[in-house]
Structure formats: structure tokens, C-alpha cells
């Protein structure tokens, strides 16, 4: 079969939108497609050196995010933990990459955590407006994970919130 269909097909159009007369766009927003996402949930010691609460760590070619007690999300990497379920979530989550000067301004419209203190490598299972999201601090921005079913609504939420700072959707 051909490539998987994006959950954002009908809302992502490349271009610059919103208010652009203030030095913007303040937000660069794009979907990270084709990531391999694996949820690891352990009932006992995994035998692996996985990151602790609210943290991430490189693992193999990818990265492991701690997303809850004894629970991790592996991004573009694989592992064989002991005493754990390994569940494919590649289609279950949509990953958005947010960069630009206004990332915090946009996220703070719906995310109650202290984003000033949210650093590169940090992980937070939090909410953005009505959406349960996972934030991962990256260089110059944030990767945002949201359940596929909410992805379109979340995209629309973000672009609405970003309007006053201007935003750009790059050509994939």
C-alpha cells in the first residue's frame, strides 16, 4: 500500500499566515511525518537505562521520552525491554514541530505549565486548551504529540492562537 495518510491532510497548506507586520512569522509549524513511535509500559524493571520523570534521553538512533510512571515513548528507535509491553503508536499520535520566537507565547494560551522553565530535553504530559498533549523541548522549540483523532482540531487551535504572531507552514 502507498504511504500512510496524514491526519492533517485537509488543514495543512504551506505558506505564511496571520499577522506578519510585527517582524513575524513568530511560529513555524509543521508535521513530522513517518516517525516510528513505540510506547513502552513496564510492570517491572526493564533492564534498560531509560530517562526519569519529565525527561528524555537519546536511545540508539532516536530518543526515549518519559511519559508517565514506568511508561516511555520511543521515537525512531527500538528497544527490547524486560517486563514491559511494547506497543506501536506510530499511527496513534501526530507529532507537530513548533519553532520560532513566539512558541512560548502561542503555547501559553492553552498550556498551564511554566514554559519559561521548560528546557531542551524536558518532557511534559500536559494539556493545550482542551487537548491532552505531550511536549518535548527541542533546540529552538517544542515537539508536540497529540492523539490522532484530535490532531486536526489541535492544528486549528494552534493556528488560531498563532494568528497574532504570524505563522508559517513550510513546504514539506
Amino acid at each position, binding site marked *: 500500500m502507498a504511504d*500512510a495518510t496524514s491526519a492533517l491532510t485537509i488543514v495543512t497548506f504551506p505558506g505564511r499566515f496571520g499577522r506578519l507586520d510585527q517582524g513575524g512569522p513568530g511560529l513555524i509549524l509543521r508535521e513530522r511525518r513517518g516517525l516510528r513511535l513505540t510506547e513502552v*509500559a513496564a510492570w517491572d524493571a526493564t533492564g534498560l537505562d531509560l530517562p526519569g520523570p519529565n525527561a528524555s534521553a537519546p536511545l540508539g538512533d532516536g530518543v526515549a521520552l518519559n511519559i508517565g510512571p514506568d511508561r516511555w515513548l520511543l521515537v525512531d528507535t527500538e528497544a527490547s525491554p524486560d517486563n514491559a509491553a511494547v506497543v506501536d503508536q506510530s*499511527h496513534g499520535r501526530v507529532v507537530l514541530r513548533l519553532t520560532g520566537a513566539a512558541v512560548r507565547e502561542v503555547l501559553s494560551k492553552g498550556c498551564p505549565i511554566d514554559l519559561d522553565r521548560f528546557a531542551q530535553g524536558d518532557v511534559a504530559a500536559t494539556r493545550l486548551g*482542551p487537548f491532552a498533549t505531550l511536549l518535548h523541548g527541542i533546540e529552538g522549540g517544542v515537539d508536540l504529540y497529540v492523539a490522532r483523532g484530535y490532531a486536526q482540531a489541535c492544528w486549528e487551535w494552534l493556528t488560531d492562537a498563532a494568528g497574532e504572531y504570524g505563522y508559517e507552514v513550510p513546504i514539506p
Partner: protein
Amino acid sequence: MSNRLADGGLIDRGRRLRFRFDGRGYEGFQGDTLASALLANGARLVGRSFKYHRPRGVFAAGVEEPNALVTLLGQGRREPNARATTTELYDGLVAESQNRWPALSVDLMAVNGLLAPLLPAGFYYKTLFGGPGWRFFEPWVRRAAGLGKGSTAPDLDRYDHKYAHCEVLVVGAGPAGLAAALQAADGGERVMLVEQEPRVGGSLLWDRRTLDGRDGPAWAEAQAQALAAMDNVTLLRRTSAFGYYDDNLVALVERRTDHLAAAPAFTTRQRVWWVRAKRVVLATGAIEQPLLFPDNDRPGVMLAGAARAYLNRWAVKLGSRAVVYTNNDTAYACALDLAAAGIEVAALVDLRPAPDGPWPARLAEAGIALLAGHRLVGCRGGQSVHGVEAAPVNGGAAKPLGCDLVAVSGGWAPAVHLHAQAGGRLGYDEALGAYRPGPVRQAHESVGAATGMFELGQITGATVDDGDASPVGPGVEPAPGKVFVDLADDVTAADVELAQREGYRSVEHLKRYTTLGMGADQGKTSNLAGQSLSAKARAESNAAVGYPSFRPPYAPVTIGALAGADVGLRFVPQRRTALDDWHRRHGAIFVDAGHWRRPRAYLRNGETLEDAYVREAAHVRQSVGIADISTLGKIDIQGPDSLELLQRVYVNDFASLKVGRARYGLMLREDGLAGDDGTTARLGEHHYLMTTTTGHAEHTLSRLEYHLAVDWPELRCVVTSVTEQWAAIAVAGPSSRDLLREVLDGVDLDDVPFLAVADVTLDGVACRLFRISYSGELAYELHLPAGFAEAAWTRLLSAGDGLGVAPYGMEAMGALRIEKGHVTHAEMNGQTGAADLGLGRMAKAAKPHVGRAMSQRPALTDAERPALIGLVPTDGTTDFKGGMHLLREADVTPAPSLPVDSLGHVTSWSYSPALGMPIALALLNGGLAANDGATVYAHDPMGGRVVRARVVSPHFYDPKGERQRG
């Protein structure tokens, strides 16, 4: 602008702004409020009072204003009850007055004033309640008493919310707030300073002080500039802190565009900030309190501080001859400012018999008469004040004083509202006649005038002039007459005394009985005076009387701002399946299922909903249909104790379930009633996939997580939601196997019996195939990674072209399941147990499980309980309606006469294509065992319909289940 002083004021005389009030055009300057601009135009009458429709004028200069409430129009809006005193003027502003008919100057409703003796506190309660009274009088009362009219049109404005965190939040950018913010910011911590006004400075904007050799406004602006230059400081103007909640969470509302004639694009009108602060500094200042005297509500009577603000900040010549009435030193500066502005001051009337300190001498220097030891005993006028009468406090002849302005000061009360909202205690200061902040419960402190401390040099650390004045003064016994305590609600001194006489002693009762402090201003200039009167009537101290709870909001907040951006389509987030866009493009009408939206039916040319679902359901029975069932909850369960978990939560046994097979399971709640159902498949030795109903997916997952985390942490088992990972397509109908044979690889479908599971591939994509039937036909569920759902769906449709495959929606699915007598949450409604739903046999397994003990309560095993039955109309054609009550023949003959005992109710109904008639599922006392074949009458009391129906088995179609096993 006839009443504008020739110079002075913090207004930009280069920018003239046009505005309209009650249809008449006026001009003001940039920097004006609506109130200052109206006063500058000599428009003194701005509103009618709440109850008696008495003429009212501007009383204050800020958020505490009780009188000057207007409706703002224009730009597609209609905002009632806006305070003219805080409404910044912009070019093109349109406003109208409220609570008058037909016009502000000729208000026929003012007849209420003549009826005033008949309209005391509690009048409506006493006179109109009980019997038909209130119903008859309510429309009249509502029309006569009230505020502005809201709009029923959609709000064209947009709002949003923002979260912020800081180490120090300073509320109020007056002298104390500026000083506190600068001090905190020097340490490098994150500081937020919020100011409700467009300018910083607070009292410095009008009280003509000098600090470090600069005039007050310039000094304040310099401090603000210094703060704005620091990276760690956020300064928000036009932003009010309106709520102080637990864990130092403070809510602010920022008015972003209200002051602009045209708002910039992509900018919300107002923003609510939720600020989590380590420490909060309340520099909220103080609010001037009035002195009470008869007819003290006439236009032209205003607070002395407000008079100074209109003079000094807005350069308004408030009148030609003034009387200043005070019990403290602060109003002396008002008299001096009035005189300096060329307004004759007839006298300064001071309650105190021998005021001392420097102020009386300054008054004498300016040639202003001082009437010490006097009080006002009368106030003449109509739509404007004409004069007052002053008499010695100890008794004696009243002396008339002609004037068109009365400036009043009863001292200054610290604005302790946020302190009290935060849980801080208050202490009554007899000298100040007001409450001061006491011990705190959260991390906040009050500074400056908010603590009752008014020494500017001490507050700011700056070198200041000698303009400090003490607000301390005695209380006053108002002379007899129509003495208004609460201007906003037309509460008089007599009302307060009446409440006391009638036993409403508690301050909370006083408030509710008289409506004291219940107006839009929340009693900012009336609560203290009302409480003092109550204390006198009770012969107790003010401290003993106490104060009612301080609650958010400090000042009114637009509902739109509280709602924020989550309105319209964003009110509830839309959750879409991977096939959502296909459904949309192919004529689906949608139905909400929680956050999900699901296709209800696919309408073809000219079809009604019923046409479409009957066609779709019949099609499934005849050939093959496909349905998007991706919304089913899917929970992956793994670990050595997975089976043990299932055994504990399901009523039926799963120990005998082999790898590669699936089983229907029922869960009970802890109270023994049915909780949720679904099939669970065993994918591996210690690996299961549980499915749940769409509506209970999250609830069931969190229940399992709770059991594992709290009740049974010893179980080595984990649960993971895979609802979003897997799309699911039901393939149902006699030709379903033929259709799947066309598209699936890796499986011989003849080797997949009923309730088996198989790993298959579709065009190279690994899928899971479950042979499960909800429709009662030969049927499968195909689970596949969501990103491939649309490709698989279209592949099924094209491969099945020769088989006549068609999609079907929720309505058809409902019809098919009702024909089969399958229950859903319409039946599993939180009041039914397993046996009531015809699932009693499943609960026979001799194993413990959640809800087992409670399910064996006598009440749940009573044979008379309502239980599931089927209904068909005896005429074979009349349809049912959900929620219809089932009644006996005697109760509907000749017509239903309510109330009657209901025997049960219809839970689900549909037209059955298979039976060719309407059918229904219902819960009926005694169930099928006691009623099989009986006749009952289904009654819809709202619609007035009665359907004669026969009780039948709920399994209308293929009761032995031969088709699904075929």
C-alpha cells in the same frame, strides 16, 4: 466642551474625539473617559436609579462607580452596564443610558419614586410571592427595575486566555505598586505588574503631589519606563486582577482593544490571564467612602477624590459653586483645587468640631469658609443639585448653601477585596472606619494605601512635598430623610434599619434582604456605610457586625472573556476518525458521540435520514455493508497477570479463552450495576485486546489503571490505549466473507470461525481480523493502522463493487442492533444489572469480580425489577419514541390522566427493515418472564401520543444467531 478648563490635565488636546450619547453628538479629547468627556460637555445626568428611577450623575472616577452605568453600542456590539468612568473614549464611541423610559430626562418610571414609601426592602418578597401574585407582577417588576439590556445576537468579538508564571505579581501600579515592582525586579526575579488603568500612577494622576522634584504623573511614568526596560518585568496596563484563588492563582482580565476605534487584525478584544505567582503584592490602593445625608444621590454630588480627578486629570470644570463635605483632612485639598480652578467654594463643611493640623490654615489662606462641627441635613435639586443645607452636628438651625457641586469624603477604605478573596483575615479599624488587611493564608502581602497607610514618602522612598493628609475621621448619624446608602441598588438608610427590625441581623441577611452591595459595583462605596448603620441599629460594634464574603470578580468581567476562545466549534474539541474526510466527501451527516463525530447515514439524492438508514440496514441484511467503527475503545493488555485482571473485572469467565479467540464480556460497576461491555480477544499467551463501547472508552481505561495502581498493584500487568492507533472497519452481511476474500492475504477465511482472530495483510499492511458480529449477520471487524484506513476503505468499496458493497452509518447500525436485541448505553443506563439486560447467565461463573457482592443485593435480584423486553406496535405501523412510558390499559382509557404509575420505558426504537415495522427495546417491570405477549401502552406525555404495543422477545431477528455463525 463647555466645561473644559483652559489648560492642564492628562489629555491630548491635539486629538479631538467625537462620540454619541443617547443619540446626541459630543466631543472629547484623547485621554478622556466617557464620564470625563460627558462632564466636560456639561452632561450631568447620566442614568436613572435601579428601583426608583431617580436621576443620577457621575459619582466616582473609577471602578467603584455606582451610578454611571451605560450601554456601549457600535462595532456590532451591545454591552450593557459598562461603567462610564472606566470606559476610555475613542473616536466614534456610541453609548446610551439605561433604565429609563422613554428618555433619560423624561423618565415616566420615575413614578416609582413617588411610590417609594410603598417599596421598602423586601417589598417584592412580602407582596408578590405566593399565589398568582409573582407571575402577574414579574414582567412589570423586571421592566421597571433593572439594568441595561443585553444582546441576544452572537458576540462578534474574540477573546482568549493565557497562562503565566512569575515570582512576584504586583497588583496595582500606583506609588506603592511601582515601588514594590522595582524592588522585586532588582533581584532579577520574574515580576508582573498589572494596572487596571491605561496609565500608571494611581492617585498620583490627580492629587498634585511632587516626588523627587517631579510632578506625580511624570514620576510614575519614569518608574514604569525603568520597569519596562527590564527583561524580567512584564507590565500590563488596562488589566484588572479580578480573582484570587488557591495556590496563589490570580485571574486578570486585560482589555486589549476596547479603547481603540479600530482593533488591529488577529488581536483578541480581551484576554484572561491565569497567573501562578510565588508571591503576590497587593498594591490595590484605597476607595473613598461617602458621607450620608438626605437626598445625597442628586447629580452633582460626587466623591471629593473623584472631583479632584476630573479637575486635575481631565481638566473638567465641574461646576460654578461647590460645597465640600468631609469628616477628614483629605477633602481639604479638593476645596483648594476647586478654588484654584476658578470654582467658587461656598464652604467646606467638616463634621469634626475642631479640625487641626495644617489644612484649616491652608483653607483660610485660600479664603474658603470652614463650617466645622456641621453636617449636611438636606440637598435640593432635580436633575442637578441646586444647594445643600448645613446644620451644627449638635443641633441648631440649618443654613442653606447654594451650589451645583457637592464633593464628599467619608474617608478612604483600603481595597482589601483580593486579600480577602485569598483567604486573608480583615481587622476593623475604628479610627479609619474601614477594614485593614490582617493575617494571610496564602503568600501575599498588602502595601501602601491598601493597608491603610497613606504617607507617600514612606510608600515610595521618594522625597515628597508636604501634601500628606490623614483620612481618619468620625462617622456620622445621617439626618432624617431619603438617605441613600447604596446608590447602585437604591438601598436607603431606612431599608437597613427595617432589615434589622425584621430580624435580618446577620450581615449576610442584611445584604440579601436589602440588596446592599449586590449591584455591579459590589458595594465598593456602600458596604461600609451600610454595615455601620446596621451596627448602630444593633447597638454593637462594626467588628461585631462583620462583612459578607468577598468573592470574585473584583469588578465585572465580560462573559465572553471568561469563555475565552473556546466557543462555537471550539466549545468541544472535534475528534475525527481516520475516515472522517471520506465520510464528509460522500454525503455523510454526522452525529456527536462524545468528542467523536461519527457518520449517521450517507444521504443519497433526495433521501431523508430514515430513507437512508433503512436502505443501509436492509443492504447489510441482503449483501454486505461496511461501517467505520474506529471509535470503539481499544485497550492493549499485557503482562503475566493479564488474565487475572480480566477475571477480576469481567463477570464472565476468560480462563478458557484460547489464543486467537475473542469473547464478549460484561463489566459491573462496584455497585453491582452494569458498567460496560465489549469483546476481548486473546492475541498471545499474556496479551489481550479489550474493546469497549465508544462512550466508555476513557472511563474503562482509567478504571483499569486505577485498579492496577491502587487496588491490585501486585498484578504484573499493564494497559495501554490503542484506540487511536487502530482504525476499525466493520464488514457485515451475507457477502462479507466474499468481499474480504478479494482483499485480504495471509488467511483462509474458511478457517476463521465465529469469534476467532487472525493476523492478515491488506495490500501489504498488517491488520487484525476479528470475526465479531454486532449486526447479527456474518460479519468481521478489520483493525488496521489508522494511516491506512482510507486506502483500505476505498479498496473494500472498489473490490466489492460486484457484490454491491455500500457504507452504512450509525442509524443503520442502531437498527441492526435493536433487531438483534443487543444492549448499549441506552439500556446500560446505570440503573440496570446484568439480569435486567438479559445477561444474567453470564454472571453465573463462580469467581469473584468487581460488583459481584453488590449485584446479589435483594433489590437487584427482585423478579419485579424492570428488565429488557421487545415491543412491536399492534397495528404494525405506528412508531415509537425514546423515553415513552409504558402504561396499563386502564391508565390510558379513555385518555391518559396523569399522574399514573409507569411500568417502564422505551430505551431504543427504530424502524426494522427485516420485520417491516417499527420495533423498540424497553425496560418493563418483571421483564419478559412476566409479560411475554402482553399488551402495554407506550405513552409520550410531551407529544400526547399513545402506541398500543405487544411485548415480545428483544431478539427480534434470527434469535438463535444462525446467520452470524454461518
